[in-house]
């Protein structure tokens, strides 16, 4: 049913439809509305789940670890400083192969303190072993929760997952959203069947310590699971498309890319602005296109290379930076295009909530066409 809803409430509604059994969460702007909405659903008996009101993000994810290990479908949400406080638990949950799903309302990392959006938080956890999906709009972020639970809990994968969407830009915006019914979601998402779990009738030890004789094999297994998640994601997204008619089967998605000379690459809500800017540039005769990255982990290197093979210049918009190097997305794209000879220019944009508009996208395309890149775009130089 179509409804006009706030992004956070759409996510809460989607999570409810996924029937989490245990929610363990701590508020932080701009994620707060999600956990508040879930708390009131539980309070009103609309959602039959245990809601653990923890005292910190560190405990929020630790609670999910326990709940998931004991065999329940588990949910949390956070952002920025909250995610940083979970750092240690993030690696641990992945190593223990617990399919926890966590929404990330992307936000900049301090210092200086900023509550506004960029994608530094989840990007900084790229090596933790979590699947990472990024949504462009509110419909996509709500739908991705159904798909993500299916992928994470699949026994070929068994990995935790972030569903990322841009703080404020999407969390606090209202858009029309088509929300499925409970019966439809139940038909799509089966109940959680843990591969193994803590059970006094069938005791196992979890989270043991491993000597150098064994540790590497665990990391290898997590990596293989990540690799398998590529196909499992496509399967799950195809089943979703068949049932609901909305197609997210691509780990990447092209927009007017087929004959593009300059290809922009981006993730998240900025893709909407980029598409509008492309339409305007196209009207002026410029051959520009967009490659939107939906899955950052696993990174779809083959799909990226295939999608960009016809471009003469690639310009990546990174809402994050690996300080001392480049933006994380640009590094991945460069790696994917290695040997192709296609230049990949990086633009660090919109950090800490700085606005980015269609005219900025057009300027970036001009810069890329001149070969000027690998820069912070839109810096105020008078304060430097």
């Amino acid at each position, binding site marked *: 049913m179509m409804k006009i809803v706030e992004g956070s409430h759409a996510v809460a509604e989607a999570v409810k439809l996924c029937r989490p*059994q245990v929610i363990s969460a701590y508020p932080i702007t701009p994620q707060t509305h999600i956990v508040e909405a879930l708390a009131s659903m539980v309070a009103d008996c609309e959602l039959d789940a245990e809601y653990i009101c923890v005292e910190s993000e560190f*405990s929020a994810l*630790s609670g999910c670890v*326990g*709940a998931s*290990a004991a065999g329940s479908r588990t949910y949390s949400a956070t952002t920025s400083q909250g995610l940083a406080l979970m750092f240690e638990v993030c690696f641990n949950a992945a190593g223990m192969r617990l399919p926890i799903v966590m929404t990330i309302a992307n936000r900049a990392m301090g210092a200086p303190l900023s509550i506004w959006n960029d994608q530094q938080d989840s990007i900084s956890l790229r090596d933790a072993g979590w699947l990472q999906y990024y949504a462009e709009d509110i419909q996509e972020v709500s739908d991705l929760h159904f798909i993500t639970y299916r992928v994470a809990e699949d026994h070929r994968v068994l990995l935790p997952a972030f569903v990322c969407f841009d703080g404020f830009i999407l969390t606090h915006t209202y858009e029309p959203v088509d929300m499925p019914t409970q019966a439809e979601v139940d038909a799509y998402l089966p109940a959680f069947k843990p591969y193994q779990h803590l059970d006094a009738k069938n005791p196992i030890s979890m989270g043991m310590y491993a000597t150098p004789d064994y540790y590497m094999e665990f990391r290898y297994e997590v990596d293989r699971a990540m690799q398998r998640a590529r196909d499992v994601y496509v399967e799950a997204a195809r089943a979703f498309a068949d049932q609901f008619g909305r197609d997210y089967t691509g780990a990447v998605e092209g927009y007017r890319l087929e004959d593009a000379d300059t290809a922009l690459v981006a993730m998240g809500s900025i893709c909407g602005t980029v598409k509008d800017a492309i339409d305007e540039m196209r009207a002026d005769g410029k051959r520009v296109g967009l490659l939107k990255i939906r899955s950052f982990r696993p990174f779809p290197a083959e799909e990226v290379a295939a999608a960009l093979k016809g471009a003469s210049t690639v310009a990546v918009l990174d809402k994050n930076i690996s300080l001392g190097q480049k933006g994380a997305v640009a590094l991945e794209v460069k790696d994917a295009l290695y040997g192709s000879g296609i230049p990949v220019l990086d633009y660090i944009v919109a950090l800490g909530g700085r606005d980015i508009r269609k005219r900025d996208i057009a300027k970036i395309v001009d810069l890329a066409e001149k070969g000027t890149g690998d820069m912070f775009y839109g810096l105020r130089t008078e304060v430097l």
Partner: protein
Amino acid sequence: MAENSSELFDAGHRACGGCGPALAARLIMKGSGENTIVVASTGCMEVFSTPYPETAWKVPWIHSLFENAAAVASGIEASLKRQGRDEHVICICGDGATFDIGMLCISGAFERGHNITYICYDNEAYMNTGIQRSGATPYDADTTTSPAGKCSTGNARPKKDLPAILVAHGSPYVATASIAYPNDLVKKVERAVNTEGPCYIQVHTPCCTGWGFDGADTMALGRLAVETGLWVNYEIVDGELEKAKKIVNRKPVEEYLKAQKRFRHLFRPGRNEEEIAKIQAIADRNAKKFGIDIALKK
């Protein structure tokens, strides 16, 4: 052998001979029984009991991190509740995990009132990382981060009163125990796991390696701690002291101190009367506070 054993914490672990915590684990499991899920924290017991691919645990057991056992247990308890299951959820964690780095998670779990039993095996330092002080390390103990030296008599602060902090959280059952009194420990665990709400037990577990004594003397040393009043076994139910183990003709602390290398500096080169008196005062205060003294004429 292990196959036929009825121990839930069984053979095959790699603790030092005479390890107090290993004995505590066995006794705790006798009290809690097989319908139990154990949550551990990083530390000696985790390392000596679960070197992958082996495990000494015959009950479901999970270790996540050094500091989050109480939060993991909260999640497990919520998960069981949701599934209509009724296993006991117990944490078995070292004093470092409990007194220091895990305090936040413990405080949260107790304030939320989860139905879990948190048991701290108190060997009075971080043993797994090589004997560093924790908030449970007693006054004047020599550890690698509170070394006795020319200008130091060892650990500068007395033990943190963690049981009192958890009583203040409204815990329905807070108890202390010692491996030197095995039946008492087993009974207390039984009582805690059958009490609704977050319960806490702190078990005194001498560590031969960390304290510097012969592994054959673990029980004797545990008993001495109680007999000198440096460790008191008590039960606090709904905030009220219900029972404390009485001691007939309490022994001087010196007997306990002299038996361990971690207090050696108090006797060599000369006797440090002043410091020994301070430690005696701690024992005397304990005795008065819990009313444990029974004096019989010799």
